[in-house]
């Protein structure tokens, strides 16, 4: 009798233990009817212009997917928090998303320094950092199970295109203006190494603090160095701010920006002063009057939903959720971080009909796309440069 009881008790506890073990193996943020996706945006700081669009694009795709029943019966819930482009705040909101909201994955976080601050918090709880909105190499190097990036990196793209453009405009002397943080440094390194390959040294480098609005002394410095080519590690406000300052003082070199400066906001703020500005781009701006009919339709849908035209970052946000959901769909009903990683690495090349470059991950490569090209602002509009 006793042996039988003992056997039953042991069997039951093993079963229970096994059940709880598999419950532990399940990732946070995934329930039978919902998947929680976190995103750290800048809703109130220098990158607010990008973030509003990105969040809207993400929500639009999530709503479309939910309207069709979700992914394997689970609805997507996107939770957006504000970092104000401040790494201290980024840590706080990352903790909120990971430990309080218990999100499954963090996607589309904007800002190199913000991602670098948030990732340790996420990785402690096995929460993936998917497709951050930054081209810093930290986002995919060294290969980390939890890091997946889709934007061609600042360093690589500037290294590739700076010498090409330098030769194209017959420049003689090169200088750099960059934000004095990791983002700016990545752009500067790319320009430096790229121009080194054609034996062009950097004659002068000046910096500014993230959020700064006065560039007068930096421009004077660059002008004094007589450069005719300036690599810009700048973002939304600083690009038109610095270029306008330069034009005012009669300093008119060729300005070349990174993907960070490829945005409709630059010609909108800079007006005539920024005509002629070059920048690297990855996905093209979805102008509402694009020659691509699918883009026109998508832009019209966006306008119906939100009442304003989409911008480039709306397209990024939309694509990020689309890509993520394809991975989650492939991972199937048993959705965990591990199954998602496997699905993303094995799902092959992915693209959509809105002009985004093809993305493909593998177990050795978590940077999905390294396509980039150069565009120039002509008459207030970005035009591809062949």
């Amino acid at each position, binding site marked *: 009798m006793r042996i039988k009881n003992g056997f039953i008790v042991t069997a039951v506890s093993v079963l229970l233990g096994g059940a709880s073990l598999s419950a532990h193996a399940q990732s946070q943020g995934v329930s039978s009817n919902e998947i929680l996706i976190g995103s750290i945006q800048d*809703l109130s700081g220098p990158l*607010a212009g990008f973030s509003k669009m990105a969040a809207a694009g993400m929500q639009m795709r999530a709503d479309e997917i939910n309207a069709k029943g979700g992914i394997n019966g689970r609805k997507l819930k996107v939770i957006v928090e504000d970092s104000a482009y401040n790494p201290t705040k980024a840590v706080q909101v990352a903790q909120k998303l990971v430990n309080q909201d218990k999100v499954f994955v963090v996607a589309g976080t904007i800002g190199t320094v913000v991602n670098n601050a948030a990732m340790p918090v996420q990785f402690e709880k096995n929460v993936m950092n998917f497709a951050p909105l930054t081209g810093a190499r930290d986002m995919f190097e060294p290969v980390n199970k939890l890091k997946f990036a889709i934007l061609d990196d600042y360093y690589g793209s500037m290294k590739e295109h700076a010498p090409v453009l330098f030769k194209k405009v017959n420049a003689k002397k090169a200088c750099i203006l960059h934000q004095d943080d990791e983002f700016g440094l990545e752009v500067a390194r790319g320009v430096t190494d790229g121009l080194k390959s054609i034996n062009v040294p950097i004659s002068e480098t000046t910096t500014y603090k993230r959020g700064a*609005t006065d560039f*007068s002394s930096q421009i004077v*410095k660059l002008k004094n160095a007589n450069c005719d080519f300036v690599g810009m590690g700048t973002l939304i406000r600083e690009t038109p701010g610095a270029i306008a300052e330069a034009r005012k003082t009669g300093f008119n070199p060729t300005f070349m920006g990174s993907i960070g400066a490829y945005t409709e906001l630059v010609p909108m*703020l800079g007006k005539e002063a920024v005509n002629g500005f070059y920048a690297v781009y990855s996905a093209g701006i979805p102008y509402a009057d694009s020659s691509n009919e699918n883009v026109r339709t998508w832009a019209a849908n966006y306008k119906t939903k939100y009442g304003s035209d989409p911008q480039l970052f709306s397209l990024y946000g939309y694509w990020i959720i689309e890509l993520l959901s394809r991975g989650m769909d492939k991972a199937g009903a048993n959705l965990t971080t591990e199954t998602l990683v496997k699905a993303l690495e094995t799902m092959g090349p992915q693209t959509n009909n809105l002009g985004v470059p093809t993305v493909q991950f593998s177990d050795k490569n978590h940077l999905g796309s390294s396509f980039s090209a150069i565009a120039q602002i002509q008459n207030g509009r970005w035009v591809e440069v062949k």
Partner: protein
Amino acid sequence: MLQLVFGGISQGCIYGLIALGFVLIYKATETISFAQGELMMVGAFGALLLTKFLGFSYGFAVLTAVVALALIGLMLERMVIRPVLGQTSLAIVLITLGLGYVARGLIAMAPEIGTETHTLEVPYAGKVLDVGGAVISYDHLIVIGATVLVSLFLYLMFRFSKVGIAMRATSQNQLAAHYMGIPVKRINGLVWSMAAALACLAGILLAPITFIHVNMGFIGLKALPAAVVGGFTSLPGAILGGIIIGLVEAFSGFYLPEGFKEVSAYVVMLLVLLLYPEGLLGERTRKKV
């Protein structure tokens, strides 16, 4: 070189205009108002609203915005500051800091407009003047010109007008002024509204250079060293301090290694606090207890 000087002076004039507000309030009520930067931001957004959405002409918009901010300043004094007079000065400082947060939050809440960066349509956009090899943009010239005009106006007002003399009296000794029949509370309200109007003007002048956005008020933090350097009790000191800080920043940005530009203002402030605690033009005051 001349370029640096002009750039420094014009940036310094912005600091000076905001510092004027600091000093005005401090002289009258011995409190430091940290809301000046945000009042500047609100003023700039006000001008944006008037020109972009209501179609006012630039000049009219400036006038309206300045008057509106003056009224807001009056209101703030009446509703937020007066009830806490008599509390520790720390309390009032914290309240002004809080006002700043509230202003930023409210503006950021404005749908579509609040979190975006905007440009202000100004009639002198893009124009430049050639002065002996240095190119000065009209943005900077207008700033310097406006500061000169404002300083002149304030000087004349404080020297010759009844209101100005009354303000000087209350800033020296509130009790004595009260005994002389000066309506001290009303004068304080007037001081706050003047400071707000000055901040508004600074914001409108700054807008073409730095764009209008909810965080543009942080430049107000640089105006604090300007006020300290010039002397918290001296109005011409505020302008002088501003110009000094502006020039120091311009030159350190050019001659010193990267990064020094950002800290130069505070280094100067620390130096002045160590060597001339009252500031360059401040008065030595001692209170007999």
